[in-house]
């Protein structure tokens, strides 16, 4: 066997072991991978650009040349769904990434130091959390204006307190463990204890939450675009497609079924991944 073949064999073995430990993580992760690849490779997967109109074939049903049919402007629905995924996934990953960068340090510090720092950090979080997410996002969309990055920012602000809470709770639990006392008895500094000992042992629920929040981000993006506060036409967005396709639902149901199904698959992928993650981080703890 060549070195490459050995490497491949190892990778397959690892994948199989991972699947045995946590089927949902692999199924969800695999699904997301397929969707992400399809979104990135969209220009090569369909011969039509998402904005190209074909007035000879408006509202054409699914066929070999247009697997999901065309919309009222004769645009290819498959192409628009795949390009819509680009927006959805960008919003999902971007918003959660921004939120994580801010929320992990805050939650870690609040959970580790407790007492007054905990209050200083957590009370403002409670204030943000007091507003329903959709209301906050709509208000911020009105305040910041529209656009991809602004939408990510609005979602990130909604997400920060949610992640801070999860991080704080997990850090609080780990901070009480004997090995943290042990690290302190060995002369480790607070910063070192937090980063090296508390964080790795407390991060799993944060990743689970992050995965679920990415799914929710896709729904929120669709909702915002649906009501006209998200991405502006003609950029393809799943929510926008639902809004536009609504009027033709009777004659051309594929206009709403395709983006609807696309949303379901992406959210399902994130939720499965979130469900499967804890099982993967378990064995190292050994208990």
């Amino acid at each position, binding site marked *: 066997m060549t070195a490459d073949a050995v490497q491949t064999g190892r990778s397959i073995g690892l994948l199989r072991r991972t699947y045995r430990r946590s089927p949902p993580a692999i199924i969800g992760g695999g699904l997301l991978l397929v969707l992400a690849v399809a979104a990135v490779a969209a220009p090569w997967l369909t011969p039509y650009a998402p904005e190209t109109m074909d007035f000879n074939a408006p509202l054409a049903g699914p066929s070999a040349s247009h697997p999901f049919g065309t919309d009222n402007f004769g645009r290819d629905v498959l192409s628009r769904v795949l390009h819509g995924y680009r927006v959805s996934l960008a919003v999902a990953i971007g918003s959660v990434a921004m939120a994580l960068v801010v929320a992990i340090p805050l939650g870690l510090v609040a959970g580790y130091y*407790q*007492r007054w720092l905990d209050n200083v950090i957590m009370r403002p979080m409670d204030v943000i959390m007091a507003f329903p997410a959709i209301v906050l996002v709509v208000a911020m969309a009105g305040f910041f204006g529209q656009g991809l990055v602004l939408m990510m920012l609005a979602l990130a602000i909604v997400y920060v307190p949610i992640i801070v809470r999860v991080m704080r709770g997990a850090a609080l639990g780990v901070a009480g*463990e*004997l*090995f943290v*006392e*042990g*690290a*302190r*008895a*060995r*002369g*480790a*500094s607070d910063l*070192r204890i937090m980063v*090296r*000992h508390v964080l*790795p*042992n407390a991060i799993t629920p944060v990743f689970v939450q992050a995965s679920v929040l990415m799914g929710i981000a896709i729904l929120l993006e669709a909702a915002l675009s649906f009501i006209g506060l998200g991405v502006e036409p003609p950029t393809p967005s799943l929510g926008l497609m639902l809004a536009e396709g609504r009027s033709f639902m009777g004659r051309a149901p594929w206009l709403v079924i395709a983006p609807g199904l696309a949303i379901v698959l992406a959210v399902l992928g994130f939720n499965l991944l979130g469900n499967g993650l804890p099982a993967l981080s378990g064995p*190292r*703890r*050994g*208990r």
Partner: protein
Amino acid sequence: MSLLDVRGLTTEFRTEQGWRPAVSDVSFTLDPGEILGLVGESGCGKSTAAYSVMKLLGANARIAAGEAWLGGENLLAMDDNALRKLRGDRLSMIFQDPATALDPAITVGEQVMETVREHLGLDRRAARARALELFRQVGISDPERRLSAYPHQFSGGMAQRIALAIAISCNPEMLIADEPTTALDVTIQAQILRLIKTLLVTERRSAVLLITHDLGVVAQICDRVAVMYAGRIVEVGDVRSVFADPLHPYTRALLDALPTHEVARGALATIEGRVPGLTDRPSGCSFHPRCPHARPVCATELPPRVRPSPGREVSCVLHTADG
């Protein structure tokens, strides 16, 4: 001169009725190369006393009074950063449950290396070499491979050896061992105790403060013993004479409660009553409600500390001149 000199240590815990002492006016000394056993029942304050010396107390505890001199420095008056540099270096510690005292997410090798890099300023290579050497010293076979294992891959005895390797990594002057063998099998217990004695006392002339509720452990390796009850040291002396001739009624009762081969079939001796909690400490001598020799004065006045013979100390009216 003593290595460690603790004087009048009082540590309080926050309770619903305010701050209450868990450790009251505790004084003891520890010489280089000496093993002092700190014994008592659960909740008597023996662990709190030891943790106070390293100032490893939670937010619900405070040191209300006392000094702890290590060399020319009072540990209790040191700022946090200076004390942090001492911990793991000149003062180190091992815990009761070695499995949970090690970080489950990091390899044991990393944990040993972390300590020597922090205190000895070694680079990765040198730290790794030091870790290997330490693993060999504590009797871990195949140390090269074991360095990259995680704590859950070790048995309790092995994990305690690793904890000990970390504790001795910077050649500490003193080790605090908090019930180091309580969670282990009896056969492993003896091995760990022997290892502590060899590595700390014989090879390094370090002092060991051994916290235990097991008088058998004290008999096995301690030079001196301090008996604690309800936050106070009631008796101190060298192990041989305390075991042969316990002066305090509590010490006597503890020794009487040890199971022996002769009475293996009979009921085990017990001490009547229970250890008072933080908020219901009796007045006077804390032990008087359970003491068979209690007198009226015991309920009202703290017993005086007397020295009946060199090296022995007891807090009980029975041993005063007019007792």
